[in-house]
């Protein structure tokens, strides 16, 4: 019913208040349910991991540390965790270095090549990562190599570098170019300007991107599925196979550890890189 503003009689105040309240209530209720559903699984997995029994029941039957202590004997899992850490660290270092450099080139350029590069570098976020993982495996084979840690890291960089590009690009777009001109006119060279002016101003963006890249690499399955072998087995793949074959409570204990470590890292990232602001 199109009504023009001129003829629309203002509604009674009470109706409007009721409408506003009902909207607030409806959205508040849905959001509350959603937030509970978002958080509950992490809490439940932590609580379950302290069970004293052999079954994954919630609420747990009795409380104990036994499954966490059992992790000390889980050598295969430990090796997988170590591999994951090595790969994630290398991936983060390379993603931050290459991604920040590329962001500097692309972020403030309106040229066609810059936009093309932007689309190319961001496309791993949209393309099915599993298809890329498989393509990388074929490619490595075709070149006559066997999958190795190097290729695993390179594959991870491809799918993790978009996070660095995104947060760094956002930070760069808020950087006042006048500051760079001022630095140059005061006699600083390109490198000095970068180190003393640009980097301090975009540091939080780079940091947040590095954090996201680390988490994405540590968590990656689709690429590792094809590029990791027995020697380079990583933690998510190991856990995935564990869950598929025999569900044991040690998996819950590792999960509990991962959730707690993630929380700690997130609090650190929030404190030092203002993560929640960088993500928007």
């Amino acid at each position, binding site marked *: 019913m199109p009504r023009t503003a001129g003829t*629309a*009689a203002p*509604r009674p105040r009470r109706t*409007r208040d009721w409408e506003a309240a*009902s*909207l*607030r209530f409806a*959205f*508040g209720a849905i959001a509350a*349910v*959603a*937030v509970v*559903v*978002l958080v*509950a699984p*992490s809490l*439940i*997995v932590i609580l379950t991991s302290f069970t004293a029994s052999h079954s*994954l*029941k919630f609420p747990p039957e009795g409380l104990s540390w036994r499954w966490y202590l059992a992790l000390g004997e889980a050598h295969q899992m430990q090796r997988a965790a170590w591999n994951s850490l090595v790969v994630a660290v290398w991936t983060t270092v390379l993603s931050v270095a*290459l991604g920040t450099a*590329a962001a*500097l*080139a*692309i972020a403030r*350029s309106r*040229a066609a090549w*810059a936009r093309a*590069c932007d689309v*190319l570098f961001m496309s*791993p*976020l*949209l*393309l*099915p990562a*599993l*298809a890329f993982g498989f*393509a*990388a495996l074929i*490619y490595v084979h075709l070149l006559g190599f066997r999958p190795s840690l190097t290729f695993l890291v390179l594959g991870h960089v*491809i799918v993790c*570098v978009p996070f660095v590009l995104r947060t760094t690009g956002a930070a760069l777009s808020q950087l006042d170019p006048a500051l760079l001109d001022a630095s140059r006119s005061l006699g600083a060279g390109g490198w000095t300007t970068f180190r003393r002016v640009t980097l301090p101003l975009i540091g939080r963006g780079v940091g947040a991107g590095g954090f996201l890249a680390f988490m994405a690499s540590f968590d990656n*399955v689709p690429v590792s*599925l094809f590029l990791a072998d027995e020697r380079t087995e990583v933690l*998510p793949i190991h*856990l*995935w196979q564990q*869950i*598929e074959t025999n569900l044991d409570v040690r*998996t819950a204990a590792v*999960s509990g550890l991962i*959730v707690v470590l*993630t*929380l700690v*890292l997130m609090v650190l990232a*929030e404190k030092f890189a203002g993560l*929640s*602001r960088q*993500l*928007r």
Partner: protein
Amino acid sequence: MRLRESQLALPLAALFVAFFVAPLAVLGALSLSAEPGLASFTFRHYVRFFTDRFHTSILLDTLWLGVLATGTCFVFGFPIAWICARSSARWQSVLVFLVVLPILTSVVVRTFSWIVILGRHGVLNQIALGLGMVDEPMRLLFTELGVVIVLAQVQMPLMVLPILTVLSRIDPNLLDASTALGAGAWRTLWRVTLPLAMPGILAGTILTYAACVTAFVTQTLIGGARLIYMPLHIYSQAVGANDWPFAAAISVIFMFAVLAVVWALNLLGRVDRGAAHA
């Protein structure tokens, strides 16, 4: 100076050409060859895919799964973003933190916790049985409903964050003006907030959709062996059946299908922007 700055993109561009573009090109070439050796050209694998209902139904199931999961993400994600945009800075950080927590927790771990929740003796069934809502445990694991629920939880942040960004940039005066002109809160939401939030909604929808259809871990662990979606199909053809050319063809089809959906959504965004200007 400009030349030097632009050269900074070269290392990453080189890596992408050598390790992203080239592998995808090889994938495409392999999908068109009769033997694993890239020799002799054939469309056989594509014909095989599209003439067999078994294969095409997996593709359609996967694309439909994405629609269901993305829709669920929107229904629950928009209110979160809406409430978040209206909260004080402090609450906003807390809410964003809670929303981001799941996506940064390992996806295997998140999916695993859902097995504990959705299983026959899981939390959900115990609650439903305890309250007398059902007489016997519901089957949630290994069902499409289960996969949709878990995907929605796992990918929710991808929907919430872009919407939150646009919502917090909307000029509050526009909402006041709408109220002053006599529109109620629901009408303001429908006629002012939603249209203005469209770019964020589309960005969120694209990211969520792309993530949901390729979520291998969630699909395999919650869906089990009987609910087959494209990622598992590629994996089992490549690793299980060791049929690399056919797996390559499935990968190419899947990639183009996802890109087509993304492209269509982008187009929708352009039409929408055009309508806003008219």
